[in-house]
């Protein structure tokens, strides 16, 4: 990874972290989805993955995300304002309030949506890659998914199809050690998800997902392979989710384990690296952080003041969503 791009990647990580810390606060204050809790799955502790992968992507490359997608969205270049408005169910949201936290979309940057179904994004990402190859566009398609998804049939079917037809997909497994509360050791019969790549004739690599440069270096190979028309890769990023599965879920994990992973916070590791290498000084990093904080504040103002969708108009639209003729005269 080029040293001078490191602060830019760190800025992405700050944007994700500060956004989510703020979203959590708003969630606790019941500001997000009225009086209902709604879903909010945070990415805190996993930021280096989306930041590292996205540094390699062009604006028109496809990204298919998960239920834990805020970080993917920000890293791809999605608008924080529109995402926060979406989390509040506003018409100005990136999905017009129809999708919410798990279904973020932005067609300007080919951010093709989060997904509420574990493992469902893999065939979709494979399909977008099919188009890229079909039209010879040189775009690549990135699919993020968790360790839980690696046990879904769609994982196996998609890896097979993508490899069979040499499609430009990068399958990025964010192995955060748990599917909700079930440890990965109880769901996967081998050490690394990445080992499964060999069964589908593609490279598979397991890396430290909390290390920005490790993620970047591995993703660089996978993206280059996809762009060259050589086919898909499976990249497993070993990481840890610091928060519970979501803001309304219980947590059965041991505090000591969580604390141990907090010491390997990807943001702290990146800051340390940047400072040690002399790429930037503490003041530079503070400045980036302050700029990001300002951006989040503006996003909150935007989202709070944006109007809610119009109930009456929505009901009228819903009447002919499928083109059926309405009530008889």
């Amino acid at each position: 990874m080029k040293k001078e791009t490191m602060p830019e990647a760190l800025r992405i990580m700050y944007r994700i972290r500060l956004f989510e810390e703020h979203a959590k606060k708003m969630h606790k204050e019941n500001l997000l989805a009225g009086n209902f809790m709604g879903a909010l799955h945070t990415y805190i502790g996993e930021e280096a993955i989306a930041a590292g992968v996205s540094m390699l992507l062009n604006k028109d490359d496809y990204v298919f995300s998960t239920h834990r997608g805020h970080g993917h969205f920000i890293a791809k270049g999605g608008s924080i304002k529109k995402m926060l408005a979406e989390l509040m169910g506003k018409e100005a949201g990136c999905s017009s309030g129809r999708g919410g936290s798990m279904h973020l979309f932005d067609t300007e940057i080919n951010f093709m949506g989060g997904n509420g179904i574990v493992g469902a994004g893999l065939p979709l990402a494979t399909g977008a890659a099919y188009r890229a190859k079909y039209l010879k566009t040189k775009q690549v398609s990135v699919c993020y998914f968790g360790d839980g998804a690696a046990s879904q049939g769609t994982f196996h079917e998609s890896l097979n199809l993508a490899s069979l037809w040499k499609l430009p997909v990068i399958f990025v497994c964010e192995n955060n050690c748990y599917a909700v509360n079930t440890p990965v050791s109880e769901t996967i019969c081998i050490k690394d998800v990445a080992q499964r790549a060999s069964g589908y004739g593609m490279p598979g690599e397991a890396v430290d997902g909390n290390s920005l440069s490790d993620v970047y270096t591995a993703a660089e190979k996978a993206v280059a392979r996809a762009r060259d028309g050589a086919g898909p890769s499976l990249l497993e990023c070993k990481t840890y989710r610091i928060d519970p599965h979501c803001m309304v879920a219980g947590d059965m994990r041991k505090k000591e384990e969580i604390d141990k992973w907090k010491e390997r916070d990807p943001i702290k590791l990146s800051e340390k690296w940047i400072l040690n290498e002399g790429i930037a000084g503490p003041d530079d990093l503070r400045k980036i952080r302050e700029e990001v904080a300002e951006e989040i504040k503006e996003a909150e103002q935007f989202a709070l003041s944006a109007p809610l969708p119009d109930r009456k108009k929505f009901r009228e639209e819903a009447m002919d969503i499928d083109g059926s003729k309405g009530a008889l005269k």
Partner: protein
Amino acid sequence: MREIKYVEAVNEALMEEMENDTGVFIIGEEVSCAGGAFRATEGLFEKFGPERVRDAPISESGFTGLAVGAAMAGLRPVAEIMYLDFITTAMDQVINQAAKVSFMSGNRIKAPLVIRAPYGIGTREAAQHSQSLEAWFAHTPGLKVVMPSTPYDAKGLLKTSIRDDSPVIFLENRILYFKKGPVPREEYLIPLGQADIKRKGKDITVVALSNMVPKALEAAGMLSEEIEMEVIDPRTLVPLDIETIAGSLKKTGRLLVLHEAPERCGFGAEIVRQVSEQAFDYLDAPPKVLGGLNVPIPFSPVLEDACVPSAEDVADAVKKIIPR
């Protein structure tokens, strides 16, 4: 006018739309050299090559999802499910992905794909190869559901379905596949949501789905000396042309709905609901649905045939509704 088989009409529609739009491609099991299990895609591979006529492994979830993703990215895939029954293994991709992505994205993303599936009872293939599942899809907001009964309708509706920006479930009846009917050589389209009156009559409105249309017409012939049946084929369940059905009821005052799917929660119940709510004043008799038995389809031909209404059953039902 020349006559061609239903399956040939499907083939012609695919051929023409692939010529019209390079974004149209076909994916499914054995769709290339084999031409599909029922030869609906015969000759397409030779003409358009492997990228556009893509043989998939037995991975319904994978290749259906691939088609959804390709549609989201701007192509117009036509996925073939060899037997409609097999779509169960791809239901997440149909119900949670294809049907919802346009809505969930605030209409930013479309999923213009067609899922074609041969289906239906009567080929002695037992419970997992014979189902009529149209009601499942009609119950899911975001999907359109098309089930033509003639070669003419199959061709015109498939062409429109491929051009439609919504995901369309296109159900092709296997018994009808090899029946011939008139199809013009010139290009034509049939809009979705437009019922067709297959036979005019004044005494009773019989709404029939897919393979029940020929049986209804046969019954109409059997009864023609005493009763004039009006036979309506809605052709598309979503969108549904309830106006044509109600217009007929205004004249006849009596309704019989026919389908091969089980009666319980079948699409007939939906038609009767809409008629009861919106055209109650036209009814002179209780509306009736005649559908399949609420059982899995048995293998033994004698039992299989007992599961769905025959032309005689239709004629009997009509006679019961109309007082002598």
